[in-house]
């Protein structure tokens, strides 16, 4: 996750338009009230909250993945757009480059 966020922030620093999409278990990364210190992990919520400073505001979660895990948007750290698998597929096709984790 850390090395993936490094790419996200670096792309923004190079004035690239960044669109973030969370699907599958990736959605858990956005959950509020995480206790990263229990597992001796770094708390990524600080980075997610700072994304807007980097002009990264286009953040989507996949509707089907949210439903399958019974997660609602108010349980997430940051404001997101909920999009269907079909919509996200179309958006990914518009990207020049796609990075995934």
């Amino acid at each position, binding site marked *: 996750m850390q*090395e993936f966020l*490094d*790419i996200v922030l*670096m*792309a923004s*620093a*190079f004035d*690239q338009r960044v669109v973030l999409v969370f699907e599958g278990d990736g959605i858990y990364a956005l959950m509020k009230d995480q206790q990263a210190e229990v597992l001796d992990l770094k708390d990524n919520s600080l980075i997610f909250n700072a994304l807007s400073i980097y002009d990264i505001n286009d953040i989507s979660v996949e509707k089907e993945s949210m439903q399958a895990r019974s997660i609602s948007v108010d349980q997430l750290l940051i404001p997101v757009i909920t999009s269907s698998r079909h919509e996200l597929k179309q958006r990914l096709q518009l990207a020049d*480059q796609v*990075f*995934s984790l």
Partner: protein
Amino acid sequence: MKISLQINASPYQHQAADSAWHFIQAAILSGHDICRVFFYHDGVFNALRDSRPPGDERDVVKRWSELHAKHGVDLVVCVSSAQRRGLLEQTVAKKLGGYQSALADGFRIAGLGLLMEALIDADRHITFGD
């Protein structure tokens, strides 16, 4: 066509490094320009100087070094990925008390900025390994 590559997986366990190497051979033969190979995540192990596979096996690290020597392909290892995994280049090794340099010949160490530069500069960026 200008092509940049990114390698995300270590050699020997996954096919990524082999596929990438064969892809580059074919691309160069077809007259394409490989402007950079960027090693990220566990891909940094492709640069491990002390790698010594048995004599009857392919030597992935040596293959990269030879690729650089023969075609001048820019082989860039991400500094933060590398340091996380104990691959220190000479100046950092001296500072942190590691080996002389963990990087094989032909590789250089740099930051993610060089990945972004390649992404912007190249006509195609192709990632091997997840």
